[in-house]
């Protein structure tokens, strides 16, 4: 089974580095990390992910902006997006990201993998 390509967009470098290690260690994923919101689209275009894990709160760009930019690209429009957030629950109820699945930090890698696999096309 080919490895699934996961693009992780999150500004916490410590988290993303370990997440990449933990996910790739399973042998089921190729992970690309981008810590800057403004480089998210470029990273997505280059990496062509099977799923995007998007942090809801990134300091340099709002999640809905990143989402809109990605959705505007034909070849990226159908890539499933899984949100994850360290914020309180009510911050997820913003209209632009409404309807997208969201997991709450912190969570174990195994739990995250369950969510990822559920939303992979």
């Amino acid at each position: 089974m080919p490895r699934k390509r996961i693009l992780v967009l999150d500004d916490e470098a410590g988290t993303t580095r370990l997440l990449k290690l933990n996910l790739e260690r399973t042998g089921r994923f190729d992970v690309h990390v981008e810590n800057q919101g403004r480089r998210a689209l470029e990273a997505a275009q280059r990496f062509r992910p099977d799923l995007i894990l998007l942090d809801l709160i990134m300091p340099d760009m709002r999640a809905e902006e990143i989402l809109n930019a990605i959705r505007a690209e034909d070849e990226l429009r159908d890539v499933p997006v899984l949100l994850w957030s360290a914020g309180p629950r009510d911050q997820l109820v913003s209209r632009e990201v409404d309807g997208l699945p969201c997991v709450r930090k912190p969570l174990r890698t195994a739990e995250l993998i369950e969510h990822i696999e559920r939303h992979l096309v």
Partner: protein
Amino acid sequence: MVEPSSTTLPAASVDDLPLDRATEIRLLILEDVATDAELMEAELRRAQLQFTSHRVADRESFQAAVHTFHPDLILADYLLPQFSAPEALGFLRQQELCIPFILVTGTQSEEIAVVCMRAGADDYILKGSLKRLPASVLQALRQREIQREKKRAEDQLRQTNLDLARREQDLQRTLRSLEKSHRELRQTQLQLIQSAKMESVGSLAAGVAHEVKNPLTTLLMGVEYLERHLGTGDPELVSVLRDMDDAVKRANRVILGLLDFSAPGDLALEELQLNDAVDAALGFVRLECAKRRATIARDLAPDLPVLRLDRNKIEQVFVNLFLNAVQAMPDGGTLRMRTEFGRPEACATAHVCGEFPPDEILVIATVEDTGTGIAPQHLHKIFDPFFTTRKTGQATGLGLAVVKKIVELHGGRLGVRNLPECGAQAVVAFTVPEAV
């Protein structure tokens, strides 16, 4: 030399007259012989006393004159054809009138003098020595004036004392009401401080949550990485990693509790049978109860009115109350759960239900344990966020604070107290909405 008529006072003269000189003395003369009266008047006039006189000779005209003529002084013969000086004095005493009274008589008799002086006469003068009359008149008037002054002063003193007593009572009352106000102010101040604290906890919580949860995620991922990377061969390593994992979970629980506590009061209301929420919550804690050898005694009223509640939040309320109850019984016991409904006055838990208007219908849930109860010194703190009696790390101290907030968001009341025998009791009361 003229001997003073009184040993305590010097002989009076016109100058000593305490009255205004221009003031005329109103003189009532009780005398049946007109010339005798004229002699008296002449003597007074000779001493330059200003006076108006009125002569009477019998009881009726004397009594009438006392009330209509308003005499300042009475000169009276001892014996008249139909009246006498002692009778006149008796009348004055009976009327409680304090008019100076000088006996002017033709007969020199010590016996008469003593009788009259005892009856209240001021002086006793012989018609043969009228020279002494003006001085005696002045003396009597002056003495009466002094008596009046003394009485006035006494009255005033009495009045002042009364006023002082009244003022002291007023002050005592004011003091009591000030003390009461002070107590109320302190109470209000404490509540204000408390609510200000809560508000800042609320606004802090959201920011703190985000800033803490990201590093927690890194830590958790790191622990997982180390678990895989270092393997599970070394038991010491395994326990260190487990401790780290627990620490992350603990920190996360605190954050979640804070978020629950500070979350805005949005309720997803639905029509709900309270018993359903209770049963769902009991389901969550059944395992914990079994583990701690706590038996569940469930006594739910079958026909409860339907309420409008947020199912998840109400379940959270009961899960919290059940866990508190179970944890209060480390050696096992009974967790008693009861639901009922009725008017506040019919409610056995008046400390909670008494706060509702008497015409409301209440649905009441009571959770009781047979545990150790709450230490009296802790009772007033149990709803404070972060207050806990359990060991650090075992509890966040937010459970009851969140429970109380949720109940109050639904317009309900929560009361917790110790039971007389043993254990504690939590009472949750909701009003039944009218239109359901």
